[in-house]
């Protein structure tokens, strides 16, 4: 009984037409763009988080000392670091690592011991961070050849750039979501306006507002859901086949890509679009109905 009534309620709305296509297409296109913007936001968010975190949480200590005192000073510095609050790990770079760092200037075939190259200690801070000024004082007292570089020179611009990037990503996502909402709302309104005769005929033969609104709401919500799902699927395929989606540098440079649970976020786009369509159609239907007696 109820099913047959619902089936008929669906039939009272004309099956198609340009406004229907418009709703489908607008939902699909906007979902597609939203997936891209989401990918951008999340990728840049990851990047921003990594830069912000890693840069803020790592420091380098450079120990310049006569060859014979070097290892002693390195050990002294490491001991100090072990007892420093806010340091998670600290370790001296191996010869190979230092060689790799210096290769651009001295060539790969450099023999480190022929040079008075300073030793480098990599310090990783924990979540609370350490107090660089205090550490500097302790190092100056006990390890005269040590210089602490807490990367603040590099950090400031990169952290601000990274957070700008994240802001940009979310701004575009919100922007596209807003455009989608507006487009779906307008398409629903246009479709209702195109169906003004249907609505007035139904009202005149004794249909209640709820029946009429329901018929349109269901139609548009489903249409938006279908459109947005198609757009989302296409968008995810496009992101997946984005060149360099795996390597993190490439991902950063091409700006896109999902990782881990982020793959779930685009799945939220169709239900949200459908919700917008539901609310928009309900409002539009109510408004249209109120002009009729």
């Amino acid at each position: 009984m109820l099913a047959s009534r619902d089936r008929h309620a669906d039939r009272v709305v004309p099956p198609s037409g340009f406004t229907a296509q418009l709703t489908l297409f607008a939902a699909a296109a906007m979902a597609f763009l939203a997936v891209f913007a989401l990918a951008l936001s999340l990728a840049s968010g990851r990047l921003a988080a990594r830069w912000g975190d890693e840069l803020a949480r790592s420091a380098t200590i450079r120990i310049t000392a006569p060859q014979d005192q070097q290892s002693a000073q390195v050990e002294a510095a490491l001991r100090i670091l072990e007892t420093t609050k806010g340091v998670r790990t600290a370790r001296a770079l191996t010869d190979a690592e230092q060689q790799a760092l210096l290769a651009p200037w001295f060539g790969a075939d450099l023999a480190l011991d022929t040079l008075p190259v300073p030793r480098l200690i990599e310090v990783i801070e924990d979540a609370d961070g350490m107090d660089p000024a205090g550490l500097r004082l302790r190092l100056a007292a006990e390890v005269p050849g040590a210089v602490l570089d807490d990367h603040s020179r590099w950090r400031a611009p990169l952290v601000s750039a990274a957070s700008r990037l994240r802001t940009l990503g979310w701004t575009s996502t919100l922007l596209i979501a807003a455009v989608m909402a507006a487009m779906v709302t307008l398409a629903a309104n246009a479709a209702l306006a195109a169906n003004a005769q249907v609505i007035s005929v139904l009202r005149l033969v004794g249909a209640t507002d709820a029946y009429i609104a329901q018929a349109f709401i269901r139609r548009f919500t489903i249409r938006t859901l279908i459109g947005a799902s198609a757009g989302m699927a296409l968008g995810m395929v496009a992101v997946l086949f984005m060149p360099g989606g795996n390597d993190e540098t490439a991902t950063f440079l091409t700006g896109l890509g999902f990782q881990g649970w982020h793959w779930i976020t685009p799945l939220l786009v169709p239900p949200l679009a459908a919700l917008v369509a539901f609310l928009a159609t309900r409002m539009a239907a109510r408004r249209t109905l109120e002009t009729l007696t």
Partner: protein
Amino acid sequence: MIELENVAYSYGGGELLSDISLKLAAGSFHFLTGPSGAGKTTLMKLCYGALSPTSGTLRLFDKDVHTLDRDEIAQIRRRVGVVHQDCQFLDHLPVKENIALPLHVSDRSNEAETGDIDDLMHWVGLTDRAAALPPELSGGERQRAALARAVIMSPDVVLADEPTGNVDWDMSQRLLRLLIELNRMGKTVLVATHDLSLIRATKSQVQARVLRIANRRIQLAGADL
């Protein structure tokens, strides 16, 4: 059924209808005439709650229209069958489904499967056109479909606005017979028409009263017809 007490109506300019007092009792048969633009359609719209009077009291089924909410008006529409002067349909559904539409929207879809609807379509001569879409109908066929749609619910009141404006004499007799039949079953009928010969022909078959709108008021036209 429908009671107007000192009702006036205005579309915004001057008053179109003034001081109308009228009672459509259960089982009565009324004709409504008057020159074009006198307000016949307006009066009908008042009677099915599409317009509310600008002053006076209008009671539909013993309820004041001003106190009715939208769902109550929808309920009243199910008890009042209306043939509109410019009959409109759902253009994407075939004629038969359009005629059954009042049943569907008021949860009586199962009745649409019974034979009543076929009988009715046969009576108004639309059996052949049952599967056509409304835009493919001729002017007279549309009016007949509208009449069929108005009476499919066997409503307590039938309001018909120029139901025979586009059909020939024989067909208009046939349509009137349907209304007379319903009236004999106790339904209240109000027919707006400017076709005086139709009124005359009907008066011989049923106790019909003729109302005339002139100078914004309603009068009972009597023996002068």
